[in-house]
C-alpha cells in the first residue's frame, strides 16, 4: 500500500520492520515459556518434596556467562534496532530549507482550531491548501496552551508550544483530502480541534493561490 507522503512511506516501513521483529522475538519467548510451563508442570501431589531454595543460602544458580551472553545479544538487537531509526528521524526532521520551491506556512494553534498563514500574509482557519509534490515547511506555535499538530495520514507530528516555534515539513504525493488533528489534551475542545488538509494538483493550487492573494 502506497502511503500518501514520503514521511508516511518511511514510517510504515520502519513500523513494519519493528512489528516483524517484535512479533518474532515475543513468539520465541512465549514459545519457550509455554514449553517450560508444560514440560516442568508438577505431576504429583499439591506439595511436592523439598524445594531447592533455602533461607540463608547465598549460593547462586545459573551461570554469569549466560547472563553476559544474554546482555550482549539483547544489546546488539535493541541498539541495532534503535540506531537504525536515526536516519528516518533525520529525514523526517531535516527541513528542506534550501529547496526554492518549498512553501512556507505558519501554523498557529489555538483553543480550539488551527490558523494557517501563507507567504502572502493571508490566513486560512480550519483549512490548509497545499500543492502536491512540493515540500511544505511548517512553523508551528500556539497562542494559548500546549497542542500537538499532526497529519496522521502523513505521520507528521510536532508539538505546538506557546512561546516557542517548532518546525515540521511534509509533502503530499497525490491530490486528496486529509485530516489535521491535535494530539495533546488542550481543554474541552480537544476532540474537535480538527482542520482539513487539501492537497491539490499544482496547477489548481496556483490558480487558487492567485485568487486568494488578490482577494481584498
Amino acid at each position, binding site marked *: 500500500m502506497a502511503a500518501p507522503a514520503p*514521511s508516511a512511506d518511511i*514510517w510504515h516501513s*520502519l513500523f513494519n520492520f*519493528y512489528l516483524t521483529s*517484535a512479533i518474532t*522475538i*515475543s513468539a520465541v*519467548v*512465549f514459545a*519457550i*515459556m509455554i514449553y*517450560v*510451563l508444560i514440560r*516442568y508442570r*508438577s505431576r*504429583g501431589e499439591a506439595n*511436592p*518434596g523439598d*524445594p*531447592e*531454595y*533455602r*533461607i*540463608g*543460602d*547465598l549460593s547462586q*544458580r*545459573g551461570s*554469569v556467562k*549466560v*547472563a553476559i551472553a*544474554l546482555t550482549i545479544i*539483547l544489546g546488539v538487537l535493541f*541498539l541495532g*534496532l*534503535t540506531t537504525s*531509526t536515526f536516519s*528516518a*528521524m533525520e529525514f*523526517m*526532521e531535516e527541513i528542506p530549507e534550501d529547496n526554492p520551491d518549498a512553501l512556507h506556512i505558519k501554523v498557529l494553534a489555538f483553543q480550539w482550531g488551527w490558523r494557517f498563514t501563507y507567504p502572502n500574509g493571508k490566513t486560512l482557519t480550519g483549512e490548509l491548501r497545499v500543492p502536491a509534490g512540493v515540500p511544505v515547511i511548517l512553523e508551528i506555535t500556539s497562542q494559548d*496552551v500546549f497542542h*500537538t499538530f*499532526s497529519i*496522521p495520514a502523513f505521520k507528521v*507530528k*510536532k*508539538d505546538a*508550544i*506557546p*512561546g516557542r516555534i*517548532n518546525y515540521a515539513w511534509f509533502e503530499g504525493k497525490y491530490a486528496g483530502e486529509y485530516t489535521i488533528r*491535535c*494530539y495533546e*489534551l*488542550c*481543554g*474541552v475542545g*480537544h*476532540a474537535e480541534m480538527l482542520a482539513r488538509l487539501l492537497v491539490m494538483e499544482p496547477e489548481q493550487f496556483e490558480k487558487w493561490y492567485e485568487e486568494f492573494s488578490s482577494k481584498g
Partner: protein
Amino acid sequence: MEGKEQTRVNPLIVWLFTTNHKNVGILYLVTSLYFLVVAGILALTFRIQLTVPENNFLTASAYNQAVTAHGLFMLLWVVTPLASAFANYVIPIQIGAKDMAFPRLNALSYWLYLASGIMALSSFFAPGGTADWGWTTYAPLNTLQYSPQAGGSLMGLAIIILLSSSIVATINFMVTIFRLRAPGMKLMLLPLFSIFWLVTIFLMLWAFPAFLAPLILLVADRVLGTVFFTSPEGGALLWDHLLWFFGHPEVYILLLPGLAITGDILAVFSGRKLYAKKVIVGALIVAAILSYIVWVHHMFMTGIHPGLREAFNITTELISIPFGVITISYILTLVGGKIRFTTPMLFAIGALALFIIGGASGVFNSSVALNFGMRGTFWVVGHFHYTIVGGGITGLIAGLYYWWPKMTGRMFNEKLGKLHFIIYMIGFNLLYFPMHALYDMPRRIYVYEAATGWGPINMLITMGGFLFGASFILFFWILLDSLRRGPVASDDPWNAKNYSIEWNVPSPPPEFNFPEGKVPVITAQGLEFRSINEIVGGPVSGISARIGPSKAPNIPANGGTPMEHHGPHLSPWPFVLSMGVAMTLLGLFFGPGLLILGLAVFIGSLVGWGWEDLKERFHVAIEALGEKWPFDKVENHTFAMWVFVFGEIGLFGPLFMAYFFVRANASLTGFAWPLPGQIHDITLGALNTILLFTSGLTMSLALIGAKRGEEDLLRAGLVATFILGAVFLAVKGFEWSELFAEGITFGSDISASLYYVLTGIHGAHVLAGLIALIYLIIKAYKGGFSPHRHVGVEAFAIYWGMVDAVWMFLFPLFYLI
C-alpha cells in the same frame, strides 16, 4: 490480630491509633482497593462514552475530569499504596524485624495518604469540578487562566500531601530495611520483593520530591498568582521536564513491586531457586539508574535539541536490556522445577506474559522516528497499561492471593481463583490489545467521527473493559467469601517456609511477628529463632551480627501496663495530625470554619506528639541486633534525617534547575533580570546570611554540649539558634513587606515569582526548624539529653546544616548575580 494485651481496647480505637506495621498494611490494602474501585468506575464511564462514534453519554468537561482523575488515582492512590500494603505487612517479617523503624511515622504515612485521598475525592465537589487537564497536567493548560476550577488547585494540594506521605514512608523503609535486618540477613539473602522494594524506595527518594517541586510551583501559580507556567521563560517546557523527570522513575516505582512478587512466586511454586539472582538484582539496579535518564522520550516532539533526543532514544532502548535479562531469568527459573499452578502462580505467569507484550510495544516508543506516529495516541495507552496494569497490578494481585492466607489466616476458593484468572486475562487482553490498532486515534478525545473507522475497535475495547471490571467483582467476592467461611490457613499453606521468613510464623503473625522473646537468626544452615539474650550475650557462631548499642527492649521504664489507652503501640497523633492537615487544606476551599478548626487540630496534634515524646509514652519495640550494612555506623534517627536530607536535594535540586532554566531563557527572550542590589537589598541579604551562619555555629556548639554532657552549653546553643533563626525570619518578613509596598508581588514577573517561592520554601524550612527547636529546648531544660542520648540534637543539627546550605545558594542567586 492484635496481641492479647490489646483485646480490651475498643477495636475502632485500635484501627485509628495503631502503629503496628501489619495493621497499617491492612489499612493500606483496604484503602487502595477502595481507590481501585473508584478509579475503575471512572474508567468504565469514559469507556462507555467512547464505545460508539459521536456518543454523548458524557460532556467534554466530565470526560476530561474522569480521564484525569482515573489516571491520577490509579498512579498515585492505587498502585503504590497497594504495593505499600504488602511492603508494610511482609517486609518487616521478611527482614526479621518486629516492626518498622518508626512505627508512628508509619501510621503517619498511611493517615496522610488517606487525608490526601479524601482531599482528592472532595475536589470533585469543589466549584467547577476537579482537575481536567489529564494526569500529565501539561502547562499552561494547568494554570488558572485556562482551568479556573478550584478543584484543580485542591487536587494539586492533595498530590502534595500524598507525596509527603510517600516521603515519610520512604525514610521509614530505608531505615527499616538497611538497619533492622535479623542477624545474618544479608541484603542478597532477602526475597526479591524486599530487594525490589528497597530499589523502589531509592527511586521514590528522589523522584517524589522532584514531582513536589513543579507541583509547588503549580499550586503557587494557581493560589498565589505566580507566573512560572504562564511566562515564556518557564512555561510548558519547564513543566514537561520536571514532570517527566519524576515521571519515568515513577513508572518503575509502579512496576517493580509487582515484578518482584512475580519472581518470588515463580520460584516458590516451581520449587526452584531464582535463576541468577545476582544478575537479576544487578539488572534491576541498572534499570533503576537508567530510569533517571530516559524521561526525554516523553518529549520527542517538543522540538528540543535533536542530539539530546537521540541520546535519550539510546538510553531508553538500553532499558530493554536489563528488563529483558530479568524476564529471561524468570523463565529460566522455572526450568527443572515442579510447577504448581495455584492461583497466585497463574497470576504471576500472567503478569510475566503481559509484561513481555508491554515491553515489546515499548520498544516502538523508544524510537524518535516512530514517535511521529505514536505520540499521543492509543498505542501509548495500550503500551503503558500492558506494563503497569499487566506487569504491575497483575503481579500485585498475585501477591494478594499469595499473602492473603498469611494476612487473614484464611484460605480462599482455588477454583474461583482460577476462574478469576481466566476472566481477568480475557478481559485484560480484549481491553488493551486492540488499542494498538488505534495508533492514529488521539488520547483523551471524548468524541470521534464515524468516518475515522475507530468505532468497532472501540466497541471491542469497551466490552473488554466491562469484562475486566467484572473480573474484579469476582475477585472481591472471592476475598469476602474467604473471610466469611474460608478454611483456616496453616502457617505455610504454599510450602514456602524455606523461601522467606513470613511462612515460618503463624497466620496471621502475632503482634511482634516472632515467638515470644525470640528473634530470627539466619545462619548457613537456615532460619532459627533464638532468644535475645543468646544473641546479646556474645558472638554466636556463624552469625555476622554486629550488636548495636543495646536498647532496653520494649519494657516501659515505669513498668506501666501496656494496656493503657496510650499504651506502647497506640498513638492518636498520626491520625489526628493527618486529619488536621486535611481539614486545614479543605477549609481553603469549603469555608474558613473548617480551616480554623483544622489549624487548631494540626497545632494541637504537634503539641500532643511532642508531649507524648517528652513523657516517653510511646515505646518502639524494635532492637537493632542484626545486619546493618552499609549503614552500620549511623544511628537510626540520624540516618532517617540523612535520608530526609537526600530527599530535600531531590526537591531543591529541581527548583534550582528551574531557576537556571528560567534565567537562561530570560537572556533569550530579552527579559530584564534585576541587577544585583536593584530590587533585593544586598545588605539585608548579607545580614541574613550572617545570621544563618552564626546559627549554624551555635547549633554545632549545642551538639558539642550535648555530647560532653555540658547542659549549659547545650541549652545556650539551642536558645541562641532559635533566636538567630527567628531574627532571620523577621528580616525576611521585613524584606517581603518592603517589596510588597513597592508593588512587587508574587505575580509581578518571573524573577519575583522565583524569589518569593524559593525563599518562601526555605523560610518554611526555617519555621519548621524553629518548631522543632522549641521541642528540643523544652527537652533540654527537662534534662532529656545526655552524652549517650542526644540523637534528637544530632539529627536536628543535620537538618539545620541543610537549611544553611540551601541559603548558601539562595543568597548569591537572588542578591549577587
